[in-house]
């Protein structure tokens, strides 16, 4: 740190002490100063248009009144926010969102650790197996969710047929067979689907991490007579930490924002009883556009807070860069 400061200072002082160099004309200086823009300009424009502008519009919308069909009736002050915080369901939706993120990400990461280890072993057909793992990731999430919804159909769903055949399910079309009709069981099934579609990415991230661990370390551990568990704990896990953290953070953001699974399977219903905050935002949008924008702002804030806390807790910079 001190080194850099020192260097900057000499640079600042440098030119003054020397014989004044021939000064560049103003336009040329300007051109030189702006030339980096040529390279980073497109990226800045992209961020501006795709990220900053929507954020601005989101905030703006949250302070306006709209009819259900999207006509702007002017300023609303804080009313959208007070309406939002007056929603009796808001608290349970936020709690449900936390459960959703923690369970889905937690289970995904745990299973992924095992899967990554498995796929890192040599076995015949490993290439094919690795390719197969991509499937849930490559398939449209919406499509996967629909497939599960039909598989859970109370009358004809293949999962119910299976459960009936093994004797778990007593009769088709019953309350028991109506997995997506009961909020609690629907929520569990949706978490299963969310885990299913999150696994490939996490597993690949961890697999890539595993492959960067030099084999000498394992050799050394073996020479020292470390047990496999000890080796895993003392060598694999610590060295896996950077890729684990990347996968974890991306998963948290993804799962928090996850919309298609819940929308396709229950639409957040009955009422808001299977909605996370993202789905709730969309449900509100159908009738209360301003309030929905207020919910977006809240979601936006939550993601930022989660990410900042995460970075702080994991001392991200030391670990990843």
């Amino acid at each position, binding site marked *: 740190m001190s080194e850099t400061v020192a260097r900057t200072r000499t640079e600042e002082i440098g030119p003054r002490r020397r014989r004044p160099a021939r000064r560049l004309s103003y336009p040329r200086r300007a051109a030189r100063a702006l030339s980096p823009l040529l390279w980073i300009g497109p990226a800045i424009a992209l961020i501006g248009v795709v990220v900053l502008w929507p954020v601005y519009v989101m905030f703006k919308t949250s302070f306006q009144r709209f009819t259900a069909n999207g006509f702007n009736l002017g300023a609303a002050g804080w009313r959208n926010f007070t309406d939002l915080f007056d929603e009796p369901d808001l608290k349970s939706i936020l709690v449900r969102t936390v459960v959703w993120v923690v369970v889905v990400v937690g289970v995904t990461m745990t299973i992924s650790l095992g899967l990554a280890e498995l796929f890192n072993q040599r076995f015949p057909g490993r290439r094919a197996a690795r390719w197969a793992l991509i499937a849930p990731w490559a398939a449209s999430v919406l499509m996967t969710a629909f497939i599960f919804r039909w598989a859970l159909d109370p009358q004809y769903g293949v999962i119910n047929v299976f459960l009936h055949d093994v004797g778990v399910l007593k009769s088709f079309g019953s309350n028991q067979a109506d997995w997506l009709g009961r909020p609690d069981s629907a929520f569990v099934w949706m978490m299963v689907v969310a885990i299913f579609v999150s696994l490939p990415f996490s597993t690949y991230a961890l697999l890539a991490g595993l492959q960067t661990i030099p084999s000498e370390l394992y050799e050394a551990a073996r020479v020292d007579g470390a047990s496999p568990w000890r080796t895993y704990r003392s060598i694999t896990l610590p060295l896996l930490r950077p890729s684990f953290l990347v996968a974890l953070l991306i998963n948290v953001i993804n799962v928090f924002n996850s919309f298609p699974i819940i929308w396709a399977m229950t*639409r957040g219903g009955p009422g808001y009883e299977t909605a996370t905050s993202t789905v709730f935002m969309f449900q509100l949008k159908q009738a209360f556009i301003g309030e929905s924008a207020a919910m977006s702002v809240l979601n936006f804030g939550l993601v930022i807070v989660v990410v900042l806390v995460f970075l702080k807790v994991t001392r991200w910079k030391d670990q990843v860069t």
Partner: protein
Amino acid sequence: MKRSIAAGVAVGAAVLLAVSACSSSKKGTGGGSASSGGGGAVTLSFVGADYGTGPANSTQKYWEGIASDFKAANPNITVNVQTINWNDFDNKVKTMVQNKQYPDVMEGDYFPDYAQSGLLYSAKDVTSPNTFSNLLSVFAKLNTYNGTQYGMPFTTSARTLFYNKKLFQQAGISSPPQTWDDVKADAAKVKALGKVGFGMPLGSEEAQAEALLWFLGNGGGYQDDNGDWTINSSQNAEALQFMAGMVKDGVTEPNPGTKNRTDLWKQFAQGQIGMINGSPALIPIIQEGGKLQASDWASVPIPGKSGPLDKTLGVCDNVSVFKTDTKKQDAVKKFLDFFYQDKYQVQFDKEYDLLPATNSAIKSLSSDTTFAPFLKALPNSVQYPNAPIWSTVKTQIQQQLGLAMTQDPQKILDNIQQTAKKGS
């Protein structure tokens, strides 16, 4: 790696949004800008809902047929037709309107707030007196804002109770139900056969319709005769309590709050459900299913608490005309007068099993055995409220009402009533 799922999902969603936005806007501008050129040639853009079940009976064909007949009669007026699948209709139209890309003529849902915002011609401005007076007057109020009628009914539908005669026979029920208690008792008997006694779609698709039919049975409704909101009336709450009782007894499908009309109608067509409230649109579904013969089902007036209802829920889809270009007003008028002919009304109703919206077309269909019971119910049907806030209220009913089967109905109704009152 970072791109990953996040990008996958986001890009997917973005592409979807972009595609739908583009497609609607492109076609929208087609009408907005490619308007009346020189020499009296006029191009009208028409946007309609697609009532078909596939390419074979797409409504696009129906309107293109009309457009070409119309062109033959009026060589200097061209009508560009675009139809939109019902599932996307509201969203696409809202997007078009928010982007100020108005079609000239639209058929489908009618949005009172478009009239409120001054975007529409009044019905009288774009129809001849004959055409106007031929429109079913029972739907006039629905399409009226501030005393002026803007929307014009184009196709209508009414509800009756469908029941599966075969199941009734097996369960030893001799006559169709007339009262709520009949419904409950019959449903229990059908349930004993291992089928669903009564199909009760209270999910987000159309909870507002199913609920209203029960409210009417108890003298309730969404508004009283003065147009005041009565959503949380004791009659309505009592109706919901009765329904919840049926759910508790297990004579309906499980968890009605999550079940939608489309799915339940299909199950009725498959012979899995004893009774369900339906409209003529259920008939083609029964025919397609191939499980029930024409003699295996029948439809009767909807049972009320103490006797069959003499009124029912009537719904209509409407034509609205946007004020795009005053030069087009005459051409639009000609077009409307043209497609409101009985010929086209009847053609439409036969194609999609819907009901006409004009007095003369009703007359010409009244001898048809399939349509007769519905046509009888149509003139004294009850409509949804016409207040602009209704679309908000409707959405809330769709999302919340199903909860009344497991929670206190009064509380849920109070909540919805509050929304309705806030907006009016």
